[in-house]
């Protein structure tokens, strides 16, 4: 079992990383995909992405999640911390559905729930 302080920091990690990723995803959808997967087109895509406000809104949230991860990794074994942060999947899928307007099919939900069941086993292991 993990300590209470680690569980709290894990919560901070999950909400900040999911919030950051959703914000960046929304920004990238607005920016549009690269025309081709070639260096010049990828650099142009990166340049457009760096001008997105949604991208810069997501960065501080990811910075919080990154530092939470650093601290957690110094407290707990990596094979516990990294899979435990996979609780992101439920929070992230809800965010994708209600904030990004993605259609989450029954198959996708089933997959996400299996991932979560796996995570529970991993964290209890």
């Amino acid at each position: 079992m993990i300590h209470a302080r680690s569980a709290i920091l894990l919560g901070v990690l999950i909400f900040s990383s999911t919030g950051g990723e959703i914000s960046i995803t929304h920004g990238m959808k607005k920016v549009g995909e690269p025309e081709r997967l070639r260096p010049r087109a990828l650099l142009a895509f990166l340049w457009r992405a760096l001008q997105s406000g949604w991208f810069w809104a997501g960065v501080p949230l990811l910075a919080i999640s990154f530092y939470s991860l650093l601290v957690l990794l110094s407290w707990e074994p990596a094979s516990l911390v990294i899979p435990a942060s996979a609780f992101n999947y439920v929070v992230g899928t809800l965010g994708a559905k209600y904030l990004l307007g993605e259609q989450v099919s029954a198959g996708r939900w089933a997959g996400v729930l299996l991932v979560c069941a796996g995570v529970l086993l991993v964290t209890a292991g």
Partner: protein
Amino acid sequence: MPHERKLRIKTLAMVFLLVLCANAGDLLLKHGMTQVGAVELSAAGLAHAFVQTVVNPTIWLAILFLSGFMFSYMTAVSWADYSYVMPAGAFGYAAFTFFAMIFLGEHVSPRRWAGVALICFGVLLVGQTKPRTTESAAQPQPAGGALP
């Protein structure tokens, strides 16, 4: 090649790259933080840990890989659903558990391995769904999302 199949292959290839960078970054990060030592939750402890992480080359190498992860993630979600890319990347957890056992010498119980297997099965299910259910910037904006 049908458009959806091409999109799936392109997305999964980008997810593979993303997982590779994330795993290498996480392993290097764990190695670097082991060199830094346990972080104390006090102003002095956090400041000391901050300085130690900034001067540690392993941490910088980890950051390089994690930047590669970030860029491949940004590219993947520019055309694919977040709810597709995120779980599809979970097969990296199975790989990470394996690498943590081999390279970091961590003990992994049979129950934890069973969890890893369930995660992989879930990822396979998600991989079968449509990679994109919304439109990108060049096309009409997605309907139903709460974000402007």
